[in-house]
């Protein structure tokens, strides 16, 4: 399910079109995520989540910047997102299922604002891109760097058959 040349071209073209408005859409996507998937709010007990919240807008900008970074590095998403992966895995400890919810709500937001650009092929390319971003974000989750919890013991060998 690697990103094809056509997928990359589609994502880059849409991102150029969104221009400096990306953060408007990521903020709306966050609002939609909180409304449709209330469990996601558990990660933001310190936020005012009411409509128009400045904190949600600021967070939307962070998400927008991260996605724009991802679009600029479609050839190496795991590399480009490795610091963010560490952040989500080791500090924020957000269950990766939530990346899917935000990704879905971003698709809903883009479909709502750009219906003419959101044909089936674009929908597929964007969905693939967002799954790759989610996978890259989740890539640090089962890795414990030495020094934090020490090296992991080797897996037990399967018993030799008699």
């Amino acid at each position, binding site marked *: 399910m690697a990103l094809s040349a056509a997928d990359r071209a589609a994502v880059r073209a849409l991102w150029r079109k969104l221009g400096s408005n990306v953060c408007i859409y990521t903020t*709306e996507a966050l*609002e*939609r995520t*909180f*409304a*449709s*998937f209330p469990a996601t709010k558990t990660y933001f007990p310190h936020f005012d989540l009411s409509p128009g919240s400045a904190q949600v807008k600021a967070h939307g900008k962070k998400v927008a910047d991260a996605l724009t970074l991802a679009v600029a590095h479609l050839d190496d998403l795991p590399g480009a997102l490795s610091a963010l992966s560490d952040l989500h895995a080791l500090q924020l400890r957000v269950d990766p299922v939530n990346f899917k919810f935000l990704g*879905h*709500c971003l*698709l*809903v*937001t883009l*479909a*709502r*604002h750009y*219906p003419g650009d*959101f*044909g*089936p*092929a674009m*929908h*597929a390319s964007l*969905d693939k891109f967002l799954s790759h971003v989610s996978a890259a974000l989740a890539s640090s989750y089962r890795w414990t760097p030495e020094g934090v919890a020490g090296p992991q013991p080797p897996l037990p060998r399967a018993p030799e058959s008699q």
Partner: protein
Amino acid sequence: MVHFSAEEKAAITGLWGKVHVEEAGGEALGRLLVVYPWTQRFFDNFGNLSSASAIMGNPKVKAHGKKVLTSFGEAIKNMDNLKGSFAKLSELHCDKLHVDPENFRLLGNVLVIILASHFGKEFTPEVQAAWQKLVAGVATALAHKYH
């Protein structure tokens, strides 16, 4: 048991009244097959599914999409008893069709995206939330008789 508030029901039925079931059904099923190509496994006898345009234009996809969405419409009339409404279809999808219930969730989300693209501003976060509840309820109801 999923419970829908009066506002949620209004958000759902209000939009549903304006949905062109035949068109939306074909679009939903078509997009499912394009965006998640492994779902094509259930439709070997549908003919040409070789490209996005082939899929979206395929008459069997359109016909089947209409069937699926019509059934969805029946459920909207029975939002307080989704499990009861979908019991027979649940048995069918398990025993005869062997469809992984994950596919119901995928189709539900594709439908939400299509509604967003058709209704734009009207598809507010609150309206979306009501619809997410409905599609999740339908997916659960369709999986309920699985064994």
